[in-house]
């Protein structure tokens, strides 16, 4: 088998898979190297499925808005897999005056970027979602937000890229990137050395040690998150939900099960040291939180709980960037827990960046060298 490609992508998550698909559509030869046995084992399969614009940093908001307008609506058809995209709005909920202030700030920033989002009161909230308790007094409402299925979207991009001839090789962790004559050239794995003109590092938190082999650092740390899933319930509501405190989020899937994420406050002190294992306190704590918002769900049964890692960036915004210091090297990582919703747009624009040298959306605010020490 040939070990030379136009592009090698390190990381078989949704970012790597989507970029591989859009590169293959442009006619480039691509190999995706995945460290684990499974495609999409990291944050791609371990997130709440939000496809939202509201609540985002203004640096990544253009990607979110562009993806929701141009890619998400036709994605199931394009990939031949039902990604369960549902565009029925996002409610970000608040209970206190402090929450109201946070939500107002986020809303003002988003409005200044041209997003249709506004503050609504308790009665308006319960007109949209009658299951919410009276404790909820304010919310931001963005009608063009929504959610999708991270599992089928990630594997859908994989399936479609594979059909277009992209090679995927699992259990191939990258030990080292190597430059030859000053430009990126080789990707070293336990079994083989792969060569390419361009290399994209999209390996979540593991990107940090891979990039270190060519002297590049992205300041990010892993941060644990835990979710729980209920048995299938009758259809109740279609909105994506979040809170001002970001302590709870979720939606009801097409299948009927609810997927809810929450935090116990001990995520940064977990003992599992890198393994995505649910703690004994996480699911119970999230259940108490959910019941306060949704008393009607008290009898819903939890069928499973799971955990994952965010690649949490110093400024909580991703790094999507060419690396001029290492010509031919590109980075897409540090998505900080909100990468899924922008993943199609990221894949599309990174493919343009790699193949054409420029992208539809200006990504200069997400450069890798934006981090400056205190003055």
């Amino acid at each position, binding site marked *: 088998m040939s070990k030379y490609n136009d592009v090698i992508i390190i990381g078989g998550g949704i970012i790597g898979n989507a970029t591989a698909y859009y590169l293959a559509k442009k006619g480039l030869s691509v190999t995706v190297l995945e460290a684990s*046995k499974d*495609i999409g084992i990291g944050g791609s399969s371990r997130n709440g499925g939000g496809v939202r614009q509201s609540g985002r940093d203004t640096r990544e908001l253009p990607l979110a808005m562009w993806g929701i307008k141009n890619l998400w609506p036709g994605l199931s058809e394009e990939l031949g897999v039902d990604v369960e995209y549902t565009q029925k709005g996002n409610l970000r909920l608040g209970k206190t005056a402090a929450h109201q202030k946070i939500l107002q700030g986020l809303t003002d920033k988003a409005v200044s970027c041209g997003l249709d989002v506004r503050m609504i009161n308790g009665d308006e909230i319960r007109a949209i979602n009658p299951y919410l308790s009276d404790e909820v007094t304010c919310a931001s409402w963005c009608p063009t937000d929504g959610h999708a299925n991270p599992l089928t979207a*990630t594997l859908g991009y994989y399936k479609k890229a594979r059909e277009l001839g992209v*090679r995927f090789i*699992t259990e191939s962790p990258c030990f080292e990137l190597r430059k030859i004559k000053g430009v990126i050239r080789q990707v070293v794995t336990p079994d083989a050395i792969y060569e390419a003109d361009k290399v994209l590092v999209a390996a979540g938190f593991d990107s940090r040690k891979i990039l270190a082999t060519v002297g590049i650092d992205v300041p990010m740390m892993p941060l644990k998150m835990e979710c729980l899933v209920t*048995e299938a319930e009758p259809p109740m509501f279609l909105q994506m939900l979040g809170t001002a405190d970001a302590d709870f989020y979720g939606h009801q899937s097409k299948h009927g099960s609810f997927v809810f994420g929450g935090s116990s406050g001990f995520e940064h002190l977990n003992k599992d040291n890198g393994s995505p294992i649910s703690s004994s306190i996480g*699911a*119970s704590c999230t259940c108490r939180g959910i019941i306060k918002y949704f008393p009607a769900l008290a009898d819903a049964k939890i069928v*499973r709980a*799971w955990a994952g890692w965010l690649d949490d960036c110093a400024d909580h915004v991703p790094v999507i960037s060419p690396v001029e210091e290492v010509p031919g090297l590109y980075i897409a990582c540090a998505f900080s827990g909100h990468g899924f919703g922008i993943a199609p747009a990221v894949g599309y624009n990174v493919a343009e960046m790699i193949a054409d040298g420029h992208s539809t959306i200006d990504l200069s605010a997400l450069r890798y060298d934006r981090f400056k020490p205190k003055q």
Partner: protein
Amino acid sequence: MKSINDRSQDIGPFVSQTDDAIIICRCEEITKGEIRQAIHDGMFTVNEIRRYLRAGMGLCQGQTCGKLVKNLIARELNVIPDQLDPATSRSPMRPVEMKVLGNEEVSHV
């Protein structure tokens, strides 16, 4: 490199079988034919089949169909089942109501 890690390997065309309509995952009602087709779509692990089709994601969490799915993958890829990992097991062991799971705190009366 183990052959199973090369996702572009030729595993031959999907050939329908007379018993493809048999239900393998009872909770989510996924058939043998759907699982075999998913393997030909590139889903080479039990976790991927689970995420792609929901087989093993229902009430019993794959306690019934996990082994059957694994054997189907092994047969389709022509490897021994021992080469494949089982799907990840997740808590709780049995479905539990939110109000029960959320009531684990010991009260100090």
